[in-house]
């Protein structure tokens, strides 16, 4: 009998990494469609440049480490597509390339490549360029303005709703504008209705595995209700906080990354809730107008702790249940 050793997990499922990644790519396409509608073909150019950089750097690292090319691996495509959606449509191509390179060469490859990274690559790349170019990352073009295809277009830039909230002010944007994405903001994170549709698609495809997204939103909502910023009422705080910045985008596409999230349902729920609270704490107490991605990176470090502790609780619970139902049976662990 030929035995082959491999790393865990060894659990079979109808979902493969290819199908999971493909679902995410499909879910991101409507956001790109709307980005092209609002800002022109420059949005697609950013996606192409970002994805190409991620694919090439992943391939180069795989060849350098003697791992060979993984042609059915869509993870660099997913990372490459997510990065521009968290940035303004007017961002320079250089910034996007640096974000993509950082996500691949620092966040992903040193930890072992596909499926081994501890931190979310897209969040890491965007976090790095946010610290490098905070003014550029937080200045947005007005929607429904086709942007030129040059590397650094000269356009009028505005501040987003997050900036007003950060200063303790009252945003003047309509709820309807926020739902339809007709406000300045990150390229793919302003269209609330479309993102909810993407969430619905992912829920249908993945079944009950969106408890992380749900608990994340619940945690963020709880903080927004209890600690409204400025002179907002709890209801206004809830609406503006959930619909501004990249909070909802992070809840749908970043927190639920299968590689950097816990395995058990209860651990996922706890992770999501804690993530929502932490991201809102970063928003309220941090120096930057939008620091949800930094909160995601901090939460990624607790995944191992949650997995091991919840697993040992499960073992204890199964041992006790087995012992209760049949005291003579030796519990199998």
């Amino acid at each position, binding site marked *: 009998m030929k035995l082959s050793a491999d790393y865990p997990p060894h659990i079979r499922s109808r979902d493969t990494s290819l199908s999971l990644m493909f679902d995410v790519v499909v879910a991101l396409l409507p956001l790109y469609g709307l980005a092209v509608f609002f800002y022109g073909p420059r949005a697609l150019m950013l996606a192409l440049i970002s994805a190409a950089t991620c694919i090439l750097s992943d391939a180069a690292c795989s060849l350098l480490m003697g791992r060979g090319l993984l042609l059915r691996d869509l993870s660099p495509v997913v990372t490459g597509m997510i990065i521009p959606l968290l940035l303004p449509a007017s961002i320079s191509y*250089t910034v996007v390339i*640096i974000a993509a390179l950082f996500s691949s060469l*620092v966040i992903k490859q*040193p930890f072992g490549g596909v499926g081994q990274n501890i931190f979310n690559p897209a969040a890491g790349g965007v976090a*790095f360029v946010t*610290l490098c170019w905070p003014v550029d990352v937080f200045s947005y073009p007005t929607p429904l303005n086709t942007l030129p295809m040059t590397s650094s277009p000269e356009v009028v830039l505005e501040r987003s709703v997050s900036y007003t909230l950060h200063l303790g002010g009252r945003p003047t944007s309509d709820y309807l504008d926020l739902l339809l994405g007709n406000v300045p903001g990150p390229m793919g994170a302003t269209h609330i209705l479309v993102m909810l549709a993407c969430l619905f698609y992912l829920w249908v495809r993945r079944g009950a595995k969106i408890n992380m997204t749900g608990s994340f939103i619940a945690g963020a909502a709880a903080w927004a209700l209890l600690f409204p910023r400025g002179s907002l009422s709890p209801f206004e705080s809830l609406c503006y906080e959930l619909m501004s910045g990249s909070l909802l985008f992070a809840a749908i596409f970043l927190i639920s990354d299968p590689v950097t999230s816990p395995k058990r349902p209860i651990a996922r729920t706890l992770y999501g809730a804690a993530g929502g609270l932490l991201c809102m704490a970063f928003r309220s107490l941090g120096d930057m107008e939008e620091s949800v991605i930094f909160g995601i990176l901090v939460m990624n470090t607790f995944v191992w702790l949650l997995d091991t502790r919840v697993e040992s609780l499960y073992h204890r619970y199964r041992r006790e249940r087995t012992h209760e139902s049949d005291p003579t049976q030796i519990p199998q662990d």
Partner: protein
Amino acid sequence: MRATLRKYRKIRTESGHILWNNPVLTQGLALPFAIAATTSLKNGVVLSAAMLGALVCSALVYRRFGARFEVWMHPILYSSVNLLVLLGFMRIISGWPAVIDSLGIYLPMVASNTLIMHMASGGLKAEGSALVQSLRIWAGFSFAVCFLSALRELLGAGTLWGIPMGVGIPSLSPMLYPFGGFILVGFVAAGLKGLDRLTLRILSRRGKLKREGGVAGE
């Protein structure tokens, strides 16, 4: 080819403290200097100069007086000696207030840090000159700190010793923050390890091929 491999291994052992057994990059000593204080080449050079005095004095004091004191008193001995050394050094560089401010809390830490404590509590071999051994350790520290300082200043500010270099790389100011230091030190340490393994693998493989009669020449 076997002679080349043996020669490489000999060089590796003799110059170990600079590259392959670097006290900062391999052994993980005096990391705060390498990570947080290396924001410009000037900082790196000043730190190296300060550490030279501290290491040499600690090594000589340990060799001369170490046996007379109990083990728990040794750190006090070295800190006291290094305090005086650093006092004199700070007087010498008092004409560079910008560098002193830039180094901040890290310059006084030269008087007492893990590198000195490690060297004096077993890092020095009983045989051989204490001065030569401390200079070797200093060479490793100096290489690490100066190399990282130059790299971070180039990447973070686009300058070297304050002179704009005009290279095509965009200046990434966060490379001057501690997290930039952590990541760069990690990559440089990995790079050294990788280079060593690659060299050993190439030399071993060529030697093996030659023994099997596969390579002409040499």
